[in-house]
């Protein structure tokens, strides 16, 4: 049965598939359109490869070109330049109704004049699937999305979460080679959104179909994706797995967009044992791995707030350590957030877990040392 094969596909996706033909390939895709007499580039040249069975996210702020990129995969927008390939086949000029991908729309776009069953069966009917098979597949799909018994409902009689699942079923029942999801959880409240994230991930494992997920919500992308393309101003800033995106942001934009990040800039004093050293004089030093191995160069360094330790004395050993003054302490339940002002005027955010032994380690106005392991700070491109 197809579901079996699909299951295998999903398992494969956990380990990166290299040999198989990629599900989706974008090659130098550009989308420009005229606006008030000028040519605006919504997408400025995106090339990426999405593997079979992968959960792939396009993440970025609104206007970054992520939705346009997805619409070019679906066929709703024609690329101005570049090619779109689905399973190795060039589909750049193929209309959306002839492409083997399906989309879940942000507004769900359920047909209001049809009931749930008719909505889900719409795609199969267009493909002239035999009635008996339609019946079986729609039934199966409604079971997967947990909507059995609601076949006769009209979309407007359902809650947002249910409508969302109908939209998902309507797309998945056609067994597309890839499913495109355009901010599908955007209209749901937080609780439901979190529940649907788990649900989506489960469904994706179950059906083993490639998911391309467009979102501006970084935590959503981090939780669900196998790989993430972070987009900004029509370009992909970084393409990597969630861990790498978070731990090793490639650009200042990615560092700032994903989670909270501290940006420090300074001149490379010397290169010592593979680490560039930013000497901050009395106030310590910052060790940077993988920085340009040239003294005198100015670099930007990121470090995540939760990697930093606060102490009253300068810590010993090979670590990055800088001194500053606590300007603000916020109690946030599982952790405290400190704002520490450096002598350069830069403010650094530090998260400290509220473990048993750590009563307040620092108060507002205290002079403190901030330290972290050298491997936790990276030089980034601007």
């Amino acid at each position, binding site marked *: 049965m197809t579901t079996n094969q699909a299951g295998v596909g999903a398992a494969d996706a956990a380990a990166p598939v290299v040999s198989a033909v990629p599900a989706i390939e974008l090659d130098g895709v550009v989308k420009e359109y005229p606006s008030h007499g000028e040519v605006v580039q919504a997408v400025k040249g995106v090339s990426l490869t999405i593997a079979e069975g992968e959960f792939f996210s396009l993440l970025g702020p609104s206007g970054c070109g992520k939705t346009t990129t997805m619409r070019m995969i679906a066929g709703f927008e024609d690329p101005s330049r570049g090619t779109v390939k689905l399973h190795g086949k060039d589909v750049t000029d193929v209309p959306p*109704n002839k492409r083997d991908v*399906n989309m879940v729309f942000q507004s769900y*776009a359920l*047909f209001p*004049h049809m009931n749930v069953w008719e909505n889900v069966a719409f795609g199969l009917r267009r493909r002239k699937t035999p009635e008996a098979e339609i019946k079986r597949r729609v039934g199966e799909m409604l079971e997967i999305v947990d909507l059995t018994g609601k076949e006769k409902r009209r979309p407007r009689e359902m809650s947002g979460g249910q409508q969302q699942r109908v939209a998902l079923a*309507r797309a998945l029942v056609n067994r597309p080679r890839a499913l495109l999801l355009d901010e599908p959880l955007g209209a749901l409240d937080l609780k439901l959104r979190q529940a649907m994230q788990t649900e989506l991930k489960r469904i994706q494992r179950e059906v083993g179909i490639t998911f391309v997920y467009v979102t501006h919500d970084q935590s959503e992308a981090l939780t669900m994706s196998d790989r993430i393309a972070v987009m900004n101003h029509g370009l992909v800033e970084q393409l990597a797995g969630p861990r790498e995106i978070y731990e090793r942001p490639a650009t200042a934009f990615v560092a700032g967009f994903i989670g909270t990040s501290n940006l420090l800039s300074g001149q490379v004093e010397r290169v010592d044992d593979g680490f560039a050293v930013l000497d901050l004089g009395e106030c310590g030093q910052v060790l940077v791995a993988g920085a340009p191995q040239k003294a005198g160069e100015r670099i930007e360094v990121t470090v995540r707030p939760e990697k930093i330790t606060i102490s009253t004395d300068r810590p010993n050993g090979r670590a990055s350590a800088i001194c500053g003054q606590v300007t603000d302490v916020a109690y946030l339940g599982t952790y405290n957030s400190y704002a520490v002002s450096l002598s350069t005027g830069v403010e650094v955010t530090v998260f400290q877990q509220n473990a048993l032994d750590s009563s307040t380690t620092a108060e507002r106005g205290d002079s403190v040392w901030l330290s972290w392991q050298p491997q936790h700070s990276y030089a980034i491109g601007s």
Partner: protein
Amino acid sequence: MTTQTLPGRTRKPRTRLGDRLLHIYVWLVLAWLLAPIAVMIAFGFNDTQSKSNVNWQGFTFKWWGHLGDYPDLTGAVINSITIALAATAITTALGTLIGLALGRYRFKGAGPMNLVMFAAISSPELVMGASLLSLFVSAGVQTGYVTVVIAHVLFSLSFVAVTVRARVVGLDPSLEEAARDLGASTWTTFWRVTFPMIAPGVISGALLAFALSIDDFVITQFTSGATTTFPLWIYGAVRQGVPPQVNILGTLIFAVGVVIAITNSVLARRRVT
């Protein structure tokens, strides 16, 4: 300080008086609207002896048996109905397409198009009728049945286009994209998704076009040539007195209209729930 407490005390009785006034007002308006229709229906049952049908002489069903006594009246009614049906069909088709274009796309000429449509709605019938007559005459077109249909399409087109456009503007464009995405051709998308969604607008536009056409007098008078329609026949008959058959035919047309309107609103309510 007293002014703060006063409204609270006086509000209740005032609202009750307002309610009563509102009821009376509503019934007065209904009576005012329905009185002419009631009179029209009643005089179809008037046991009048002469050709003039203005004084109540008593109740009778006899005119219903003599509905076809005036062959030219029957012909005029048939003309009116066929003209209205033809004009409605053409108007609905064209008007729906115009409404779709104006509601969906931005194109050169969309602005002027909107302006022209409102001009067509607001221009005086007398002016339009007279200018149409000069147009047909100077173009050497023989006025008659066909020119009446053309004229009716002309003045009702804007109404259909405007109602359809309102519907199209409120339509989520991703609905059509979803249909395309699910494998529907543009043709299937239109008939399975777009049309059912804009159907209420199309239907009310069509009903409006039919109603405008069937009782139009002014423009028809200018463009009909030798063709006679129901309103034209009545106008011609006024001098000798309008026979009760006219009332009965009017009643029948009205009844059909009411049935269609009720059906439409019942269907609309079912579509909503």
